[in-house]
């Protein structure tokens, strides 16, 4: 267990060491978050009305609702990108073969490669919310932080399964995964990112109910804006954990199969 943690840590250390060589990027990303928060604030000022606020699940401002939708959607993006991007980078730089001949197991290589991107996404979200709270009155007073942390963790686990499935596709077929774009596209409409799913037609609401993004955003808004505790968000949390319980083992098995297949066909390093 300690060795596994140490191996995961060494991947984080690797990614942090590489990122340190691009220091200006941290500043640029913080500025990007500032402009992003400002954009949502002014869009919300333009469209906000008492009727709209009444229609929102937490009854708050459209600014808070849409900002949470936008920044947490980033988690899905990160999950879908992280695994196949680190795989493609390892293949392109020639490190993939050298990682695979070490004594570190494949699940640890995958987990280790995901830690830094997920942490950076979390920090980016925190910076967005910090700018919004400092400059534009984003309401943080009622936030229930233990519930926020629990929702984040469950979201990360559920989305990781989708990311590993996407990486399996890239391993086999070398090209971008069409299912990834389909999921991101569907989720942007039927996931509750910028508007509540209750305004969608019935059949799209059904799609939304099958989408882990919907549960992640519902739970996050409830915990962050509505101050809901674990006892109030247990239902979406349970759904997210169920998604994780199914997707993680399935995705690991699919990835292991895809790796075996590429070792059989000799296409592991093909681009």
């Amino acid at each position, binding site marked *: 267990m300690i060795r596994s943690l140490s191996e995961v840590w060494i991947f984080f250390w690797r990614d942090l*060491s590489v990122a340190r060589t691009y220091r200006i990027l941290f500043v640029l990303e913080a500025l990007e978050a500032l402009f992003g928060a400002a954009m949502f604030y002014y869009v919300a000022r333009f469209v906000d009305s008492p009727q709209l606020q009444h229609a929102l699940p937490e009854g708050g401002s459209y600014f808070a609702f849409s900002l949470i939708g936008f920044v947490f959607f980033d988690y899905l993006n990160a999950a879908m990108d992280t695994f196949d991007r680190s795989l493609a980078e390892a293949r392109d*730089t*020639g*490190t993939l*073969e050298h990682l695979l001949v070490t004594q*570190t197991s494949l699940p640890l290589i995958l987990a280790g490669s995901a830690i830094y991107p997920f942490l950076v996404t979390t920090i980016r979200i925190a910076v967005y919310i910090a700018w919004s709270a400092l400059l534009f009155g984003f309401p943080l007073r009622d936030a229930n932080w233990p519930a926020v942390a629990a929702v984040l963790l469950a979201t990360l686990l559920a989305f990781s399964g989708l990311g590993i499935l996407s990486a399996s596709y890239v391993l086999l*077929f070398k090209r971008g995964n069409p299912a990834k774009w389909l999921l991101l596209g569907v989720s942007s409409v039927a996931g509750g990112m910028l508007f509540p799913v209750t305004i969608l037609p019935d059949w799209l609401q059904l799609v939304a109910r099958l989408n882990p993004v919907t549960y992640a955003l519902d739970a996050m808004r409830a915990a962050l804006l509505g101050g809901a505790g674990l006892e109030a968000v247990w239902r979406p949390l349970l759904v997210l954990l169920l998604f994780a319980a199914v997707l993680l083992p399935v995705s690991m098995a699919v990835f292991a199969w895809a790796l075996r297949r590429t070792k*059989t066909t*000799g296409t592991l*390093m093909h681009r």
Partner: protein
Amino acid sequence: MVPDAAILVDSLQKSFPPARSGWRSFLQPFGKPTAAALAGISFKVRPGESLALLGANGAGKSTLLRILATLLFPTGGSAQVAGHDAVLDPSAVRRQLGYHAGTDVGFYARLTGRENLRFFGRLNHLSSPLASERIAYLAQQLHLEEGLDRQVRTLSSGTVQRLSLARALLHEPRVLLLDEPTRSLDAIAASEFRRFLKSEVLGRGDTSLLFASHTLPEVELLADRIAIIDAGRLLACDTLAALKQTTRSATLEEAFLRLTGRTPHLTAEEGSE
């Protein structure tokens, strides 16, 4: 119990599916293997022994090394490293081997040489102090001290090659697989590399070496025995002296050309004689 073979290859076969283009490339992972790269090769490398793989481009040398490194699955036969099957027990195999391919170095370009070595050392279960100790030792032996604290992207290809060899040796493997190890090295660096391999790795007697090379003096210097491969078949596997004797050749080059059925290329001067 110590196995009597560091490497045991038995009737090893490997075929690849044909390359496809356009939309058919999506079917390649499921295609039926047709092109044979290895056609039933068998040999053994004893503990502490050095065996060279000699063959033309496409003879199957790299395929063989990649199967032993657990990066490829064979189509038939078996390959064992230190008594562990490369397909059935790949993690046990990886504990025993160091792998270096001269064609593909695979480092993180923006990390320093030392950071790269530390990273791969930790993935091979070296503790931080032991990794530092091994890095310092190998850097001295391979003349890497100057490049160790510079980003890999700023190093010469020869230094990167030596760094790659240091990575393969970091965890003191019992079996070392080298694929054209001196390919990108200049004459001096290649000579120092061979000296290091001969005295510091093979000289200790506890490391077995299987390497592929096109450089005949390198093969003659480092190999206890030489395996000559052509079109996926093992034509001969013996000592240099025995190969010369059985083929009635004066040099390894001549023996190789005779065994593979290729005629030595005559120069204009020789042809006119």
